[in-house]
């Protein structure tokens, strides 16, 4: 919405007032949504005491060695105070936690806990100190504005994750993972909580609608394979160059050898 008004303004500079007005509306909307997510936090924290207790047991058995019995963190793992249910759901739900071994970054692997156990862990961590909650499913449907999502994705995400979400390299052996096939919940939670070296994109930076739009864009890419054909990993010119050399020129050289070979 703000984007559209910007375009209008570029051609009609007199409409600056409109831009500011719309900006304020969007900001206000952001605030409204922020408060609504906070409410959601309150709702989730009202989950049954039973769940929280189960989560506590799981935590003590699987996480406390590194993160401390009361989430205060140790030399081996950061404090979890204030990370909220979203961070737990992301880290455990994508199998990054518990870590298999210390390395440049926690690797994605098959989750170690069932959905219920993950939820219990999340509820327990959220019950100790509140933090970002698991996002509302209405934001995860991929029914937002893909254009806005695409632009925000390119500005905020593509430098690490690549314009097609194919992933990319970071410093000292770390990398930004591929986003294709990642669940919408996890994408949302990653933006909200900034796992590991990923920065946090709080709701003042990318509003919940913005996050929804980004998810919409990523899901659009997933559901609409390239009209040009096989994407070669969406890695850009390196993959294209290798393909042209190995398969293109390779096939042609094969034809050349046949062409100049003496016939039987």
């Amino acid at each position: 919405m703000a984007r559209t008004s910007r375009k209008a303004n570029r051609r009609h500079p007199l409409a600056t007032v409109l831009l500011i007005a719309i900006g304020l509306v969007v900001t206000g909307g952001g605030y409204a949504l922020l408060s609504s997510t906070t409410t959601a936090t309150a709702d989730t924290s009202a989950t049954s005491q039973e769940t929280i207790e189960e989560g506590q047991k799981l935590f003590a058995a699987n996480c406390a060695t590194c993160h401390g019995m009361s989430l205060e963190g140790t030399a081996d793992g950061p404090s979890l105070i204030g990370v909220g249910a979203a961070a737990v759901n992301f880290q455990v739900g994508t199998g990054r936690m518990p870590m298999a071994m210390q390395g440049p970054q926690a690797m994605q692997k098959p989750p170690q806990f069932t959905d219920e156990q993950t939820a219990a862990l999340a509820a327990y961590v959220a019950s100790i100190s509140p933090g970002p909650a698991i996002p509302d499913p209405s934001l995860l449907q991929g029914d937002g504005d893909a254009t806005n999502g695409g632009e925000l994705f390119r500005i905020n995400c593509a430098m690490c994750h690549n314009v097609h979400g194919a992933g990319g390299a970071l410093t000292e052996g770390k990398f930004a993972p591929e986003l294709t096939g990642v669940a919408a919940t996890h994408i949302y939670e990653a933006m909200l909580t900034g796992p590991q070296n990923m920065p946090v994109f709080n709701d003042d930076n990318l509003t919940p609608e913005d996050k929804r739009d980004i998810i919409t864009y990523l899901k659009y890419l997933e559901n609409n394979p390239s009209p040009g054909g096989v994407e070669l990993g969406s890695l850009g010119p390196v993959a294209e160059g290798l393909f042209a050399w190995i398969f293109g020129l390779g096939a042609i050289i094969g034809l050349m050898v046949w062409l100049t070979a003496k016939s039987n």
Partner: protein
Amino acid sequence: MTTIERSDAPAEVAAPAPAPAKSGGFTAAAANYIDERTSISGVVKEFGRKIFPDHWSFMLGEVALYSFVIIILSGTFLTFFFQASMAEVTYNGSWAPLKGMEMSAAMDSALKISFDIRGGLLVRQIHHWAALLFIAAIGIHMLRVYFTGAFRKPRELNWVIGFTLFVLAMAEGFTGYSLPDDLLSGNGLRIIDGLIKGIPFVGTWISFLLFGGEFPGTAIIGRLYTLHILLLPALVVAFIALHLVFVVVHKHTQFAGGGRTQKNVIGYPILPVYAAKAGGFFFLVFGVVALMAAFFTINPIWNYGPYDPSPVSAGTQPDWYIGFADGALRLIPPGWEFVWLDHTWSFNIIVPVLALLVLLGLVAVYPFIEGWVTGDKREHHILDRPRNAPTRTGIGAAGVTFYAGLWAAASSDIIATHFQLSLESVTHAIQAWVILGPFLAYFVAKRVCIGLMKKDREIVLHGYESGRIVRLPGGEYIEVHEQVDDYERWKLVDYEVYEPLMLRPNSQGKITGSARLRVRLSKWFFEDRIAPASRTELEAGHGHGAAAHDEIEGPGHH
């Protein structure tokens, strides 16, 4: 054919009557009509039966030529739809995630070509795949010419023309890559802008003039378009024409073989065999490109989005042929920039730019360097096998290794993620490779060549190991050595080696510095050499020169 020749007679020229239609209907009449106005029969007589030798590697230049034809054909189609303008428009085409975005007319029209014109995406992909192949084919053609010594007299100037085409092709590629004004190519232009600004004295102004003011401005796409579809193609066409004229003048080189000498060329005539093969090959190359374009995405500009100076994508790389330049920039360690005399000296840009210019310059003048070292003024039409010129092959291997290092550096981030390495260690490893690799490659390639020459000599003198083990009456086992036939042997001995120069005073009785340098280079080039077997050696080796006899040799002879 006969009709055409008859019409050559002067008496016929004056005759008002149409061509004698005696020997054939329409074709003969048409041929006569054209010949009377163009004297085309002379061309047919001159070139119709011209001989072209057959070897797969001689087709590489044709791949480049055909790719260029494909590029011209597909590119012409694209120009009918492309708008080389940076005026801002609002996209309203089929790709949903860009609907409503502001972008330049160039990007908008490139997207329209891709999504709203039937076959448009196919032609765009044909154009881009053919461009990648074009430059790859030129590169590999140059390697073939280099490693077989085809650049020697009288072809030195044609090497330079070909080299110029290589540079022009890269310029064509880069200007075309930038035209859609998408995020990827925009960042590429951004890098070019930064690179130009780092040039001492004139950089800032060159950038300012190129972009028509500050980067990115609103002029660059239109200017690149003029270069891409007018100036550069005209130059490429002119240089290709020149290149081919020289191929005709020189006649093609050939590999050593029975009956082949420096004075002849053996192969198939243009009409009919070669026309069918080479003509058919055009369609084969086009077919491969069409298949690639039908099945594989290239440069999905819709993912990159319109250019904006703020975003960037991970894995931002140029197309492969600019990779070596991008890689050179990546390999510079931190801190190579100084303020001196109140000006900024960006050695982190000057050094890689100079390194590339020196590399390209050496490629361009190599034929003259080797010609000077050997002092050989004869024409060479029989190609060297790469092994028979070990130092040249070693230098080539070193050059390829250096280039490959720069090339790999341009994808250091992708290497890092795909092999789970750290970006820094990949860069450090490639830095070491670029410096040490060429020496190692030179040494290994030269030794391998000399080893192969020794083996060839062994085979000529003693035959090859047949793999047949025979038990002698005395109980001893030996492997039967079989002699190669005369033709095979000829291929192995028809080469020359040079002896290093001796330092001798010139006619004024002086030893000049350049003479010393030349002697030193000559020694470096030719000190290690294996001479081809002579007739006497051959006769001493196994008593007679005739082939086709199985010969049993004692183990001592190996």
